[in-house]
């Protein structure tokens, strides 16, 4: 077969094959068949196959479509910056929400449960009278002057208190938050 294909054969091998072919009609016939086949195959191999130019244009169109798609889906630098900023805000928000609550000064009285104390020498609020609660920082001396007995170590300090202010703008009652005021 290599002889028919014109393949690489050692010269001694080639010589012995040729000698054999002289004596063996069957092998000579087979070689002849193979040589004919080889000629046919060579001519087929050399044949110019038709070029369908539409395939190239279709394939290139697919390349363009795919490239455009990749460009659309590839996030731009601006998108990356936006995504990073969003992630940072979410992180900071989570940190803010989950932060340990600050230690408040221990209230002498429970702020939510202690009652409002009517300020001496003022008219108490009527049940239907509207008022609002305003949180204020009030000097202890003011409370003392108003007639409260304040248990404060240093009278020059101030305390936080919720003040009930009536519609006429006058303070009617007080609920101290950081010191106790006995009734």
């Amino acid at each position: 077969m290599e002889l028919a294909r014109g393949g690489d054969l050692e010269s001694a091998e080639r010589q012995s094959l040729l000698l054999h072919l002289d004596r063996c009609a069957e092998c000579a016939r087979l070689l002849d068949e193979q040589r004919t086949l080889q000629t046919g195959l060579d001519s087929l191999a050399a044949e110019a196959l038709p070029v369908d130019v539409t395939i190239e244009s279709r394939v290139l169109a697919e390349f363009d479509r795919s490239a455009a798609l990749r460009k659309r889906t590839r996030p731009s630098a601006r998108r990356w910056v936006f995504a990073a900023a969003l992630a940072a805000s979410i992180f900071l928000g989570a940190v803010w929400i989950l932060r340990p609550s600050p230690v408040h000064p221990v209230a002498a009285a429970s702020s939510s449960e202690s009652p409002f104390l009517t300020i001496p020498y003022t008219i108490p609020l009527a049940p239907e009278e509207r008022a609002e609660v305003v949180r204020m920082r009030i000097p202890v001396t003011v409370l003392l002057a108003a007639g409260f007995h304040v248990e404060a170590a240093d009278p020059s300090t101030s305390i936080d208190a919720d003040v009930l202010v009536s519609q006429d703008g006058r303070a009617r009652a007080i609920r101290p938050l950081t010191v106790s005021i006995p009734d």
Partner: protein
Amino acid sequence: MQEPERRSDRILLEQFRAGDREAFGALYRAHYPAVYRFAFYMTADPIRAGEVTQDVFVWLIHHPGDFDAERGDLGAFLGGVARKFLLRDQRAGRRWLPFDESEPAFHDRESDDFACAIEREQEAAQLREAIAALPGPYREAVVLCDLESRSYEEAAGVLGCPTGTVRSRLHRARELLARKFQRKREGQKCL
């Protein structure tokens, strides 16, 4: 494949992967004939061969990173892709059509004597028919080694089998082919 061609393929592949349309076009033009020829002789159908060729290159567009230059050359790789498409078709029950004897002509008639050209075309058609009638594995070996002039190693790369298997398939294929071709020629002479 020669080393300069392989190097050129590598450069073109890098450019194609970077989105260079011209580089892809050059790769297509360099490998289209071999892929088409393989598909053409395996399907015996020029239209289907064109479709398979298109499928192969469209696949390459969508899988640019799948080819590893360290494992062989691009031509053999694309041959392997074409073979997978052909096998998929075969499995799907798609019938490969026989060659139409009335349209054997890919031959340049102008330079030949008409009678001689007719005879050559008849022979070529008979040979195509004989190739098309070979069992698939033998046909692949003949198309790759004899019609595409690939080495045994390259053919083994396309077929995913050892070189020795390619040799033995080719040997058997040529025996069958010679017998069939001879018979067809003799039948033609008797007419």
